[in-house]
């Protein structure tokens, strides 16, 4: 059968708007939908494992040389180290170990730290989650709010300021912004002394309940601010354009014709619709944030995953690198999965597959 025909038929399928038929509840078929998505996610994850392994195997690395450099080390010691790290295994052997280990939750042992990678990651996960979580929460709230406002009245002064500011901030390299903020608020400029800590997650001298929490909050301010400034722009942009996309929708005209106030039209009708694409975008973006924290964590000595992976790269500590890579990928895959599920949950139009 010539491909033209085939393509025509499928083309028509995509072209045809969903023929509404029957009262399908959004919940029906959900299990199947979820199952397919889970399978797809699992396949992605496996593929990621493979790519991670291949990539890192290709990396020129004699970790033993790097680790022992500058320390009196005998040949025997090096051989021992190689054996200990599993470097004397063949590549397929290593791959097999790697896959089985990963699937059973063991991510191997770090070459550099001589510790299970999972515990290293576990240690660094919370600081990263704290930073990312706070920054994301603030940026999402701020970005959506601004995006809604400026999209609803696009062309207004608020829109111009919001758009201008977010575009400018988006154009700033994160690490540079971090350094500038560091100089300004931590080192101090001119006569004004710096008043925020220059790095780390807490002052170890401060212990005990509230003081410690406040101290962490204080350490969080600069890295979090840096992240927020850079990423909120994207939420503004996404939300703004979703709102603008909705602006011409007839159902908004209906709402207005019903006599709703402008605010209510926006809140009750425009926003729920505009949120659909934005929410999924945001979820997908949040997934990538975990891996994107490298620069901020480096600049502010934040004891998180990004820094860990960067440090691992310098050795290079392949098990650790693979571990962090897996965690980063998993977070993106997980977030995409969540985005899919939430999208389906939010949008009654999504049909059963």
């Amino acid at each position: 059968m010539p491909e033209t025909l085939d393509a025509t038929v499928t083309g028509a399928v995509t072209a045809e708007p969903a023929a509404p038929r029957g009262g399908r509840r959004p919940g029906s078929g959900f299990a199947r939908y979820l199952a397919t998505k889970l399978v797809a996610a699992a396949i992605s994850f496996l593929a990621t494992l493979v790519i991670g392994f291949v990539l890192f195997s290709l990396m020129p690395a004699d970790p033993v040389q790097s680790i022992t450099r500058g320390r009196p080390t005998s040949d025997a010691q090096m051989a021992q180290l190689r054996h200990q790290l599993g470097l004397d295994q063949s590549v397929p052997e290593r791959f097999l170990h790697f896959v089985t280990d990963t699937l059973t939750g063991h991510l191997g042992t770090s070459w550099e730290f001589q510790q299970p990678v999972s515990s290293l990651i576990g240690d660094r996960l919370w600081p990263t989650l704290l930073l990312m979580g706070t920054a994301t929460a603030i940026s999402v709230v701020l970005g959506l709010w601004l995006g809604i406002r400026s999209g609803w009245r696009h062309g207004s002064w608020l829109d111009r300021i919001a758009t201008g500011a977010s575009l400018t901030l988006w154009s700033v390299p994160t690490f540079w912004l971090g350094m500038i903020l560091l100089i300004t608020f931590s080192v101090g400029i001119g006569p004004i002394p710096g008043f925020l800590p220059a790095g780390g997650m807490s002052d170890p001298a401060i212990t005990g309940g509230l003081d410690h929490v406040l101290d962490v909050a204080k350490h969080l301010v600069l890295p979090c601010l840096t992240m927020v400034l850079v990423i909120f722009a994207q939420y503004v942009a996404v939300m703004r354009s979703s709102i603008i996309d909705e602006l011409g929708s007839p159902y908004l005209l209906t709402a207005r014709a019903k006599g709703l106030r402008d605010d209510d039209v926006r809140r009750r009708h425009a926003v729920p619709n505009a949120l659909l694409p934005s929410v999924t975008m945001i979820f997908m973006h949040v997934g990538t944030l975990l891996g994107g924290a490298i620069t901020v964590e480096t600049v502010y000595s934040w004891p998180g995953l990004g820094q860990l992976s960067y440090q691992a790269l310098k050795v290079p500590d392949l098990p650790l690198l693979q571990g962090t890579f897996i965690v980063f990928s998993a977070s993106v895959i997980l977030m995409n999965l969540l985005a899919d599920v939430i999208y389906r949950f939010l949008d009654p139009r999504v049909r059963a597959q």
Partner: protein
Amino acid sequence: MTDHEPLTLAVAPPQAEADPAPPVAPAAPKPRRNGLAGFVRSFVRIRSGVAGLTILVVFGLLAICAPLFISDNDLDVIKVDGPSLHSPTGGYPLGTDQEGRSILLLVIWGARSSLSIGLMATVLTVVLGSAIGLVAGHYGGWIGKALMHLTDWFIALPSLPLAISLSAVIGQGTASITIAIAVTSWSSTARLVRAQTLAVEAKPFIERARALGAGGPQVMLRHVLPNVTPLILVSSTLTVASAILSEATLTFLGLGDPTGISWGAMLNSALSGGAVTSGAWWYLYPPGIAILIVVLGFTLTGRAVETILNPRSVKTR
């Protein structure tokens, strides 16, 4: 880099394949006001776009003409004789670096590599992304499916860690950075192009072309590609912006060519050289601001072009 995902053009919901609504604003009849002239007329009306383009032209010219007024003697460390890390003076309007080179000249020279890496990476990204997106969108079947999954999967790869690892694997330097950027960013272009291809392929004029006797490649090249090109163009300006940021980030993280002169490399050496501590703001600000301005220039230009090509979505981002 990752926190600098390219500002997305169309808000495409995640499952483009089973979407109730067409994923991308269809290329609704566009007011192509008499081709190029009309385009130019519309463009000059958008002030931010003109500002963006002006920035690009200025930086482009500076980068191209740099060899005319900057010689080896200004940049070669063993030949320069300026004071080390000196604040701005008459002779050195933006001060000097540790080696006594004029920061101003370095920033201008740095534009060459920053821009060329950004552009090269973009060309790679766009060519790769468009080709894959187009084919994935055009051919249903398993080819399309496979490519689509590949694309989605690449989107799921954490881009900064991947870029870092890649450039570590390929070896350091500008070429590897360029490749790393392209490899990590083609997927969003591909997704965009694929969605747009699907939208275009659903148009009646495609069916008409088939009815006239056109085959797959003819449909793709004559009908789909021209209709997808504007989008590719817009997306590529935004890709340049994020590629330049990525370049700076990767170079800053020490994956670039440390002996080359680019903005990222300048910031890297400014920071590792202690410019922050010593308050050498003249070393720290110019490269950063140059990045900011050029990225902004590309973004503004891209937005303006998008506004013209797709007036329905006044997606001013």
